[in-house]
Structure formats: structure tokens, C-alpha cells
């Protein structure tokens, strides 16, 4: 091992992203189960301290509903990042922090709407796109600097103080070059350019999926390429990774068949990204609100005569950047 030195794959294996935030499917599911159970226990705790509320009136959020809600709010982060003209790196890191937070905590413990704000703010700081807390919170209705800053520690702890996130953007860029290298005149720059642009957009989808937990950034990048243009990608992979001259000191880590199957799996995971509708999200959100604050149920009971109108409920997460309706 010493004679080979260190490979780049080895360097990746030293990153916190690999060590702490990479899971098998089973491990991830197990983790979510435990988090959901933790959330349920928290709700029970709250119920015991509010005896006037009956346990049966509070519906707990299921694991799948948690995932759906997180996905929905992750997209909100993307929109918010665009609103603040933040670069893709900040946007992606913000989403990464947010999703990781909810691998450790349940939505029933912390309502997503403030968490997502602090995650984005923290991501901006971490990625050197500094924005002052005042200018940040000023443009988000119904928020105060204190409420956002107050959650910083909580989020850092849930992140286990790991702030470095590796995204697929740069690997995508790298493959954009290497494809030119390997395929040369077989691919037109125009075609490659448009494939690249489409793949880059797809990465934004991938960031919201579980891909980042089961696959490495380069694999995700290639999966996106493959989804956009299967033929081109396979041509590249074929030419690059088959008939590879195995030199003595270059470890043969990329076996063609394994790589292709991994990339194909990744494509599927990206496709399976939950994409709940607004209404679905609002419905789950309502549940969350009651879980977080059981006494709200009593308020609802009081207003029993009024129809269950979504519009009457307090707006969740000022996503549209200023669009506020009911007080």
C-alpha cells in the first residue's frame, strides 16, 4: 500500500462526507426509522405536559411523510437561494445541511420553516458568500435575526460539526472536459454543451434525492449525464474504462461493469426523489404544527364551525419571498 502512495479515491475516503454521511440503503432506512421514533417520543412527552389535549387528537407524522416534507422544503431552500442570488455552491450546501439535520432530528422535534433559514445562512457563511444576518432576515417576512441565529448551534451539533460538502458540480465539469479528451471529434461541442447544461440542471434534482448518501459526487455526475444522453455517456464510459492498460503502480479501481451498474442505480435513486405537491406538503405541515405544539389543537376545536380551509392556517415558510397572505 505504501508503495502505491495514496490514490484520489483514498483521499475521498478520508472526507467527513464519506466517513459520516454515506450509508447503505438499509443503514439509511434504519436511521430514519430511529429518527421518526425519536420524534414520536418527543410528541408523547409534550402530550404529557399538556394533559388537556387528548393523545388521539394528535396525528403523528410517518416516516414517508417526513421524507416528503423535507424534499418539499429542500426545494424551498433552492428558491430562496435564487432569491438572494446565491451561487450554486451555497444553494447545494444549504440543502445538504438541511437534509442532514433531518437525518438526526425529526420534523416533529423542529419545524422545518426556521431550520431551513438557518441552514441557508450557515451555508452562506461556510461557503464564503457572506451575508449579514440583518440583510438576510430583513428580506424574509416574519423572521428576526435572533430566531435564525439561535438555531446555529443546534444545526452545527446535528451536523456533527462537519461543514464541508462535496457536490457533483465540479466532477460534472471535469467529465465535460474528459469527454472532449476521450471522444474528441466524435462529439460535437454544441451537443456536448447542451448535454452538460441539461445534466447540470438535473444535479439540482439529485441534491434533493438520497443519491448523495449512497453515491459519490462523480458517480452522481455521470448518472446525470447518462439520464440526459445515454448513448453519449455509454460511448464515453466504454472507451474510457474498457481495455484499460493496467500499469503496475496505478490501482485498478474502476471496473467497468461495476461502475456502470452503480451509475444506473444512481439514476434510479434520482428518479425516485419524492416531489410532493403543495397541497400534500401543506397537509403534512399541518400535522407537524400540531405535533410541535399540541395546544394548537384546542384552538382548532374552538374554530370547529369554520371549514377546514388551508388558507385560514398560518402560512408555512415564506417561500415566495415576501408573499404573505393571512396574518
Amino acid at each position, binding site marked *: 500500500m505504501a508503495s502505491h502512495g495514496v490514490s484520489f479515491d483514498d483521499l*475521498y475516503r478520508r472526507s467527513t462526507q*464519506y466517513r459520516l454521511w*454515506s450509508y*447503505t440503503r438499509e443503514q439509511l432506512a434504519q436511521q430514519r426509522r430511529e429518527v421518526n421514533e425519536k420524534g414520536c417520543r418527543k410528541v408523547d412527552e409534550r402530550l404529557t405536559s399538556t394533559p388537556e389535549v387528548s393523545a388521539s387528537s394528535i396525528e403523528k407524522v410517518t416516516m414517508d411523510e417526513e421524507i416528503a416534507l423535507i424534499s418539499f422544503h429542500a426545494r424551498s431552500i433552492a428558491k430562496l437561494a435564487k432569491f438572494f442570488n446565491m451561487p450554486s455552491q451555497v444553494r447545494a450546501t444549504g440543502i445538504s445541511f438541511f437534509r442532514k439535520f433531518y437525518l438526526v432530528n425529526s420534523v416533529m422535534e423542529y419545524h422545518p420553516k426556521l431550520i431551513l433559514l438557518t441552514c441557508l445562512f450557515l451555508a452562506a457563511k461556510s461557503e464564503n458568500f457572506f451575508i449579514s444576518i440583518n440583510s438576510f432576515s430583513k428580506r424574509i417576512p416574519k423572521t428576526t435575526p435572533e430566531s435564525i441565529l439561535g438555531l446555529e448551534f443546534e444545526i452545527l451539533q446535528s451536523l456533527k460539526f462537519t461543514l464541508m460538502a462535496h457536490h457533483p458540480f465540479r466532477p460534472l465539469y471535469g467529465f465535460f472536459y474528459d469527454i472532449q*479528451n476521450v471522444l474528441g471529434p466524435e462529439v460535437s461541442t454544441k451537443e456536448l*454543451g447542451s448535454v452538460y447544461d441539461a445534466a447540470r440542471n438535473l444535479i439540482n434534482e439529485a441534491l434533493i434525492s438520497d443519491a448523495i*448518501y449512497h453515491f459519490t459526487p462523480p458517480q452522481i455526475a455521470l448518472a446525470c449525464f447518462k439520464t440526459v444522453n445515454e448513448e453519449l455517456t455509454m460511448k464515453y464510459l466504454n472507451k474510457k474504462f474498457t481495455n484499460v492498460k493496467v500499469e503496475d503502480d*496505478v490501482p485498478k*479501481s474502476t471496473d467497468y461493469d*461495476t461502475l456502470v451498474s452503480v451509475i444506473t442505480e444512481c439514476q434510479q435513486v434520482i428518479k425516485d426523489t419524492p416531489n410532493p405537491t403543495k397541497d400534500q406538503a401543506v397537509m403534512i405541515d399541518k400535522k407537524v404544527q400540531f405535533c410541535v405544539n399540541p395546544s394548537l389543537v384546542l384552538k382548532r376545536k374552538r374554530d370547529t364551525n369554520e371549514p377546514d380551509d388551508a388558507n385560514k392556517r398560518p402560512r408555512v415558510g415564506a417561500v415566495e419571498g415576501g408573499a404573505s397572505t393571512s396574518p
Partner: protein
Amino acid sequence: MNVDMEERQQDMCPICKTDRYLSPDMKFLVNPECYHKMCESCVDRIFAMGPAPCPYPKCGKTLRKNKFKTQIFDNIEVEREVDVRKRVSRVFNKVREDFDTLDDYNKYLEELEDIVFNIVNGVDVEATEQKLKEYEESNKPNIEENNAKRQKELEEFKEQEQRKHDLRMKKNLIERQIEQEAREMKELEKKEIINTLASGDGTQDATKAVSQVRKSMLKRSSARRKQLDEIMQALNSSRQAKGEDKKHNVPFTPFNGDRTSQHNFDIHDSYYDPFLDELKSKKEYIASGFEVHAVYDRVLTEAFTGLGCYIEQEKKELNDAIV
């Protein structure tokens, strides 16, 4: 008080009582037999005819003129001990390298010390001297061999020092020559520029002329520099020739086993990239030393960092190992 005594002793010979005032160049000698000090003229006078008894009262040891020497150390005891050591060491002349283990060497040293101690402090002097004599006789060839070795080493050392000195002289000379040539080059350049300007051929030729001058000068200076390097190398290697580095059998590697292995890609000189094309022509980028090659290197490296990490497989293995 003692200081006065010593000073007086330095100023007056106890035998002839000559004062330094009367003979300012008076020098004192001692004889290793009894270490009694007397002035040079006394030594000449008393022992010119051959061995005679020491003039000090109560001494009377038979002394030879040629054994007299200048006292090196102020403390006569130290002088005595050093003389004894010299004598014994001529017989016990092995060095550390002659022994297989540190223990053996230490035993040898202890033997030497015992003998010296005995002689210096007058303990069993006769028996010890006998022992010394016997040792010398039984190890005669070995002793002579060692002596020859030491002699050779000393000569080699002297030679080396001389060589180093010569090299250093040469180095200084070459450095001065380089400096001189640099100055000359500057002068020549100036002259060339003036000449070509004067001949009215336009500035284009002036720069050409300058570069010509530079080229020829460069050739010379690079030759000089090579010479300098060779000298420096010679200087450095002579330092290492001692074999001190033989102990370190582990070869030195700059990365200490941490070198990153080769890339899985080639980097071309340029790629189709409208985004970078726009940036790299901007003044602030060029002035900052921005290089597109660095961007190629980075994103290509990232593309292949982790490509071969199969998380599902690897994390499962890790998990199984723990459980």
C-alpha cells in the same frame, strides 16, 4: 595569596633564582619524571653533560635533558595526568569501531582508566606498570597496526581539508567572475543599444542586439554556473563521505509514502469552454496569475476523486466488520 605565590614562581627560577626583571625571556620547563619546574638556562647548565639528578632538594631523580618540555597546563596535576594518559593511550589505542558491542568497548576503556588512575595516584604503580608493559608486548602488532591507521586517518583528514579549502577558493573566484560578467553584460547591452540607435536602424534592432548579447553572455554564465554547481556538489559530497549516513538504511523519500498516485486522465492544453474563455481574457484574471490549466486540473481531479468508491459495498463491509 596563592596568586602572589604563583606569580612569584613565574618570575623567579627556584634553582638559580634568576629574576624575570633580569632576563625577561625566561622560560620554564618541566620533566615528566618529577614535574619539578626550572628555567631553560638551568636545564642547559645542569643536564648538558648527560643525565643528572634533579636539583630540587629531596628529589634527586635522574633526569635526562631531552625529556624536558614546556608545561601546557597551569595545574601540574593535570599535566601529570595528561602525560600518563598519552603514554597509556599509545598502548591502548583502539577505537569504538574495533569492538562489536558497546559493552566490550566500555570494558576496554575501564581497563585503560584503571591503569591511568593507578599510575597517577601512586597506587600499585609497579604492578600497574608491569601490566602495561605486558599488554604492550603481547599486543605489539595490533598496536602498531592501529597507530598506522590513526596516522593514515589524520593524513586523509588533512588532505580533505586542503581540498575543501581549494574548492572554496575556486568558488569565490567563480562567483566573482559571474559578478564581473554580469556587469560587463550590462555595459555591453548599453553600448549595443546606443550603437544601434546611433546607426538609426530603429528600436526593433536594438532589442535584437540586446538579446544577442544576452544569449552569448548567458552561455558563458551558464557554463560558470555549472562549474559552481559542480564545486558545491563536490564540497557537499566530501562532507558526506565520512560514512555517517551509513547508519540510516531507510532511503529518504520526500513524500514519506504519502504521494498521490497518478491521475486517471490527461490534461490537454485547452478545451472547449466558453465560460472560461470569457474569464481568462479579463485583465484582473491575467494579472492575478490565473491559469486555465489549474481549473482543468482541479475539476478533472474532482471528477476522478471517489469514482471508484462503492459506498453500498464498502459501508456494508465496514458494518459487518464492526458487528
